[in-house]
């Protein structure tokens, strides 16, 4: 355990904070995660993991594909922003780990679009480290990602190319303890790549520490299948926080979520339909209400996921 924490702190220290491109931050994708205010780094166990903590795909026991659509800041006349996400996780075996592919996109028609393509791999580390998985389940992963921004320049800026891209990567570590404690660490955009058109425009390296807790039945208040997560985000010179809660009711079929971050408040729910062949169809919805933007009905996210053997 001490070794794990030491590695965690060392990794944070080595990866220096750098300056700034905001469009690729993980604020817009993953409906279950968004229902929890984006606090997901220590929770990750589904097809949203490639965005939040790649190590989480090692805990997926079934293949899973998820497709998300959204409408951001609905109600604002003249504002049409959409975020889309496609994620796929393929657990190979305990020995070979899990692989993933994900695509996320954020765009405004006729103006700008930001895409990220992720190819990830993660594996449980207990057999390598010799740590007994009865006490802690330890996993780590690596995400290789290609970032691309496309700007529909006006005539006077046509001297600039339409798109810019760069390759970078994420690493993630996840530890789930027998007592319900969950610790996650994800360092994203490790190389702080430059995707500027005229000037240096780096996508900031972002380090996230997630502290979570899971309980089959939360003591004293008897909340079933309870999950909580607090993400602490270090980006540039700032420290940000996200917090999220989740509980599954109705025989673990209906998930109810609540969360928030500095700029917005989130709620969400998801319902799971299980079929005879042990496959599961999940419908998730999340709503985000920004605190500062006026006259918006909030952002709406919906996803359809399918888990199968």
């Amino acid at each position, binding site marked *: 355990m001490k070794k794990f924490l030491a590695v965690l702190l060392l990794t944070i220290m080595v990866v220096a904070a750098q300056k700034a491109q*905001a469009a690729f931050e993980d604020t817009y994708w993953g409906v279950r995660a968004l229902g929890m205010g984006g606090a997901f780094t220590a929770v990750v166990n589904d097809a949203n993991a490639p965005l939040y903590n790649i190590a989480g795909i090692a805990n997926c026991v079934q293949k899973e594909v998820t497709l998300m659509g959204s409408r951001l800041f609905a109600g604002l006349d003249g*504002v049409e922003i959409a975020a889309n996400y496609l994620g796929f996780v393929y657990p190979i075996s305990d020995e070979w780990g899990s692989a993933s592919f994900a695509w996320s996109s954020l765009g405004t028609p006729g103006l700008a679009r930001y895409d990220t393509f992720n190819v990830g791999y993660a594996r449980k580390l207990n057999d390598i480290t010799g740590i007994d998985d009865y006490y802690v389940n330890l996993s780590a992963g690596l995400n290789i990602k290609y970032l691309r921004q496309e700007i529909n320049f006006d005539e006077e*800026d046509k001297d600039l190319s339409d798109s810019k891209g760069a390759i970078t990567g994420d690493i993630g570590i996840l530890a789930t303890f027998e007592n319900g404690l969950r610790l996650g660490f994800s360092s994203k955009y490790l190389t702080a790549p430059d995707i500027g058109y005229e000037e240096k*425009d780096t996508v900031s390296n972002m380090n996230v520490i997630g502290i979570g807790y899971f309980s089959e039945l939360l003591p004293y208040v008897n909340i079933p299948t309870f999950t909580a997560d607090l993400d602490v985000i270090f980006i540039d010179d700032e420290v940000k926080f996200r917090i999220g809660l989740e509980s599954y009711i109705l025989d673990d079929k209906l998930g109810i979520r609540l969360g928030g971050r500095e700029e917005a408040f989130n709620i969400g729910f998801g319902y799971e339909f299980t079929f005879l062949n042990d496959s599961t169809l999940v419908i998730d919805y999340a709503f985000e209400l*920004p605190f*500062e*933007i006026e006259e918006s009905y909030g952002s709406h996210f919906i996803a359809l996921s399918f888990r199968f053997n």
Partner: protein
Amino acid sequence: MERIYKKLSLLIVVAIMVSFLVVDVYAASSEPYKTISSVADFSFIEPEVKHDKIDTVLAEGILNAKIRVDFGEATSAKAVLEYKIDSGEVKTSTNDAVMEDRDFYLGTKKGEITKDNSIVEYRIAVTFTIPEENNATSEYVLYAPADASSTTFVTANVISKIEGDIAAGGQISVFCGDQSKGDNGYVTVSVSPNAYDGEHHVVVDFLEDASSSSGTGQERENVISAASVDVEGVTEINNPIIIKNLPLQTETEASKFTMQYQNGAEWETAAGANLSVDKTYQLYSFAAADIGLYRVIESISLSKSSYRPDNRIVVKGKIGSNYPGFEFKYLQQGDSITIYNLKGRKIRKISADGSDPTIWDGKKDNGDWAESGTYIYQIKLKDGGDVISGTIAFVW
């Protein structure tokens, strides 16, 4: 007795003849100044009064009184500038008119101003001789100011400065009107005697059309101002005021313009101003209740799209004088723009100051550059109505 009678008769004849001689009224006549208050007072063979314009400019310590009289049939003219500086003694400056073609140019009068921010009081008397139908001539004196009820000086105060200590400002324009239309004549600016009582210095200040050269500017502004704008003041401008010689478009109607009044904090529409437009002379006129700061704005039918920036993408490295940033149009003082990032956080609020366009230069409230990315703007108009939103991209 007969000789005496003949001598007396000769003397009478000579006296009668002398009475018909033309003399310079201002210089030689003991008659008081004759103030002409309307075109109807003239008896021209061809009463072709175009305009009288008397300009004064305070600049570089020199008071210039440049006078032009467009009386096609006048035969001679003379101008006298009387002025006082800082309530000192009255000084005069006189010269004859120079006739060019059909116009008389009465030249430039100069009076020295010894210090900056001097208060210059002046009046100008223009004496000109005009032939009558019977080949006789008549003499007329035009005053500026020419308010028949006022024999006082107009105070032209220094209201602004340019290039350090050089003072500028203070113009007076007098419009003659269109006789064929029955317009009242000379006095289009008149000032009550108490208008220059030391606290309410009257300044009629004609500004250039700031937007005419751009071809697309929609706001045309001219100002009548008081040096010490006292919106609560009791001074009144009694007559309609010609505020601008604007380059009017072909389609020009009063309904297309709005007269606004500076209330001390912002521009507000002046109710009951009865703005009228004279296409022939390309002049706007309105009746103003108080001395103050006024402007005329071309009324434009604005939709939400009118306010949105045409340039939705700005490249940081190109920002400069010819590429200032995102340009939001038609915003008035009191309107505001707020910029949010896509996480929903406000990064900049800009209050429009009345200049057009209102610019977002890509910086946050703290002065740092905004990150590259897509942003949401929200425009709030002070007059209420919907919030106008949209997206823009700032690119590094």
